[in-house]
C-alpha cells in the first residue's frame, strides 16, 4: 500500500511531449482512474510509474520516497498490460507463479497462493493450460492473477478489459472493483472508457493531449466539469453544446439563442464574475437534464422540430433540430412525437453549464 505522488512529470519521445507537467496524488488504498482518449499519454504515465519508461522531468514518489531511479523490480508494483503479455511457453500456473518464483518463495507457499488467486478469479480449472489455449477473458484473468498473487504496494492496470466483449466487460468491472476493495491496495487504472472510470474509481484524473484536465471524484467529474472538453468527453450520450449570447436584461443575465432566451439562476449570474456578462458563450446541457413535450409547457420552453427518435431499450433518445444545430434529449419510450413534428424542450437550469467561448473553461 502506498500513496503515489506524481510531481511535475514530463515525458518526451524525442522532441514530442506525451505527458506535460502532470501533478497527481493518489491517496493510499484508493482506486484512481486515468481517463482520456487514445494517445493522450495514459500508458506513458503508467509505464513511468512502473519503471519501464524514463521520466523526462519531474518526480514520482511512493510514500515520499523518490522512485525515479529504481529498477522496475525494486518498485514493488504489479501491472496488468493492455495486451496481457503472458509468457507463451509457460502454463497458467507458472505464469501466475512467476513473481513469486523470482522472489524465491517456497514451493508450498507458491502453490497455496497461486491456487488461492486462481480460485478467486475462477480459473482454477485452467492452471495446466498454456496461454494460447485460453479465451480473451481467461487470458485477462490470468494477467490479473499474476498481479494479485503477491501483495504489491501498487496495482497498475492498463486498459485491462478493453478487448473483452461488452457483457464480460460489465461483469469484470464489478469484479475488479470488488477485488481492489478487498485487498485495499492502491490501484491506478487506465481506461479510455468514461463509463468504466465513472463506475469503478474513487478518483478520476482526466487527461487530454498529455495534460491533466481535471482531478476529482466521479460525481465531480460528471456534475462539475472544469471545461467544455471534459464535459463533452464524460457522459453517454454526450452533452449538447449550443453557442449562445449572454445578454444583460435588467438584473438578470439571459442566455440568448435563435430559438430561446432563458435567464440564468441568480447564483449562476454571480459565478459569471462580471467579466463575461456580455458576449458569446457555450451552453452545455446533458440529454437527461432536459424534458421534451409535444405541448408548450411554459413561455421559457425551447421550440424545435423532431429530427429522429432512437429507442435505446428502457430509454428514448430524441434528436431535435434547432435553427443552427441539433440537440439530443432523453425521454421515456412512451413519448409519442414523430419526426417532423414540433416539440418543446425544457431545460433543468440547475444542471446546465456555461463555458467560455474562447478557452472553454466552465463558469458553472
Amino acid at each position, binding site marked *: 500500500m502506498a500513496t503515489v505522488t506524481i510531481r511535475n512529470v514530463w515525458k518526451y519521445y524525442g522532441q514530442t511531449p506525451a505527458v506535460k507537467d502532470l501533478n497527481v496524488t493518489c491517496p493510499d488504498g484508493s482506486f484512481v482512474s486515468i481517463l482520456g482518449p487514445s494517445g493522450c499519454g495514459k500508458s506513458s504515465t503508467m509505464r513511468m510509474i*512502473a*519503471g*519501464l519508461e524514463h521520466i523526462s522531468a519531474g518526480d514520482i514518489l511512493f510514500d515520499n520516497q523518490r522512485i525515479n531511479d529504481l*529498477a*522496475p*523490480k525494486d518498485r514493488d*508494483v*504489479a*501491472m496488468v*498490460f493492455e*495486451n496481457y*503479455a*503472458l*509468457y*507463451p*511457453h509457460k502454463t497458467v500456473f507458472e505464469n501466475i507463479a*512467476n*513473481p513469486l518464483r*523470482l*522472489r524465491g518463495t517456497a514451493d508450498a507457499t507458491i502453490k497455496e497462493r497461486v491456487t488461492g488467486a486462481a480460485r478467486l478469479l475462477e480459473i482454477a480449472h485452467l492452471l495446466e493450460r498454456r496461454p494460447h489455449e485460453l479465451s480473451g477473458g481467461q487470458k485477462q484473468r490470468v494477467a490479473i492473477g*499474476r498481479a494479485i498473487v503477491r501483495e504489491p504496494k501498487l496495482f497498475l492496470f492498463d486498459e485491462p478489459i478493453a478487448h473483452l466483449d461488452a457483457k464480460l466487460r460489465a461483469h469484470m468491472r464489478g469484479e475488479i472493483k470488488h477485488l481492489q476493495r478487498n485487498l485495499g491496495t492502491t490501484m491506478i487504472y487506465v481506461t479510455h472508457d468514461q463509463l468504466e472510470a465513472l463506475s469503478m474509481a474513487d478518483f478520476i484524473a482526466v487527461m487530454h493531449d498529455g495534460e491533466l484536465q481535471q482531478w476529482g471524484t466521479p460525481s465531480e467529474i460528471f456534475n462539475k466539469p472544469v471545461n467544455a472538453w471534459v464535459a463533452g468527453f464524460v457522459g453517454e450520450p454526450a452533452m449538447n453544446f449550443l453557442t449562445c449570447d449572454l445578454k444583460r436584461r435588467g438584473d438578470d443575465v439571459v442566455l440568448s439563442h435563435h430559438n430561446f432566451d432563458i435567464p440564468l439562476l441568480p447564483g449562476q449570474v454571480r459565478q459569471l464574475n462580471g467579466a463575461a456578462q456580455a458576449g458569446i458563450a457555450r451552453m452545455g446541457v446533458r440529454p437527461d437534464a432536459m424534458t421534451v413535450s409535444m405541448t408548450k409547457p411554459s413561455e421559457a420552453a425551447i421550440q424545435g422540430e423532431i429530427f429522429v427518435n432512437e429507442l435505446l431499450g428502457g430509454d428514448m433518445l430524441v434528436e431535435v433540430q434547432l435553427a443552427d444545430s441539433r440537440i439530443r434529449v432523453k425521454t421515456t419510450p412512451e413519448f409519442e412525437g414523430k419526426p417532423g413534428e414540433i416539440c418543446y424542450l425544457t431545460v433543468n437550469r440547475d444542471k446546465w453549464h456555461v463555458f467560455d467561448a474562447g478557452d472553454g473553461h466552465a463558469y458553472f
Partner: protein
Amino acid sequence: MASRDVVHYNTPLQRVLSVLSVVFVIFYLIWTLLPFVIMFVSSFKDLLEAFKLPAVGDWAGIGVFFEFTPTLKHYQTLFAENNFSRYMLNSLIAAGGSAVISVIFGSLAAYSLSRVDFRGKSDLFFWIISTRMAPVVAVMVPLFAIFRSLDLVGTLPGLILAYTTFNLPFAIWILKGFFDNVPYGIEEAQMVDGATRFQAFRSILPLVAPGIGAFIVLCILFAWNDFLFAAIIGSGGAKTLPVATRELVQPQNIQWGAIMAAGVVTTAPMMLLGLVIRKYLVTGLTMGAVKE
C-alpha cells in the same frame, strides 16, 4: 484457422501430373541417394570386389554390386593405422566449440541489436553482415598471417576461432530475426514481476530456442564440412576429418576403400544430428518467416 486440406479435383490432367511427379521424385531420390549407397556399400568391400562392374546395358548384372563378403578392414585401417579417432575428436571439438561460442556471443549481440536503440545501429548491423560477403578464400591469406603471428596455426583454439569469425555474424543475423519476433512486452512483464534485465533476457530464450537450435546445426555443419580453414589453419596439430580423408589420396596409391569408410564416418554423425534435431530445424527456419 481454415483447414489445411488442399482441395483435390481428380481431372485426367491431374492424374497424369501426379504420375509424372512420382516418377520425378523417384529419379531425384536415385540421383541424390545413389552416391551415399555406393559409398556405404563400398566401404565394406574388398578393393577387387568394389571395382567389379557389370557391362554397359547389362541390367541383370546389377546384382554384381551386392555380391561381396563384407569386411571391416577399411575401418580398421582408419582407426588403427591412421589415427582417425583423433581427427574425429578434432572435428567435434572444432565444430561444437565454435557453435557454442557463436551462440553465446551471437544471442547476446542479437538481443542488444533487437532491443536497444543507439546511434549507428543500422550501420553496425550492416557491417556485421558485410563480413560474410567476402568469400572465405579472399581473407584466407591475411587471416593465416594473423593466426601465424599469434601462434594459433595448427591448434584447435585457432581453428575454433577461425570458424567463430565466420559463424558469429551469421548467428547475430539469424538470431536477431528471432528476437525481433518476441514481443518486448514479455520482458517488461518479467521486469515488473521482479526480474533483472538479464533474467528477463534469459526468460525469453525458450521462445527463441528453435532459432538457436537451427543455428547450432547450421554452424556445426559449416565447421564439420569445412575443408579450406581446416587445411590451412588447422594443418598439423588440428587435423579434422575432411583433411585426413584428403590425405588418403596419395600420388602412388589412392586408398579407395579407406576413403569410402572415411566418407561414412564423416557423414554418419551429421545425418544422426539431422534426424535428432529435424523438428527444431524445420520450425526454426520457418518460424521467423510467419508472424503469429
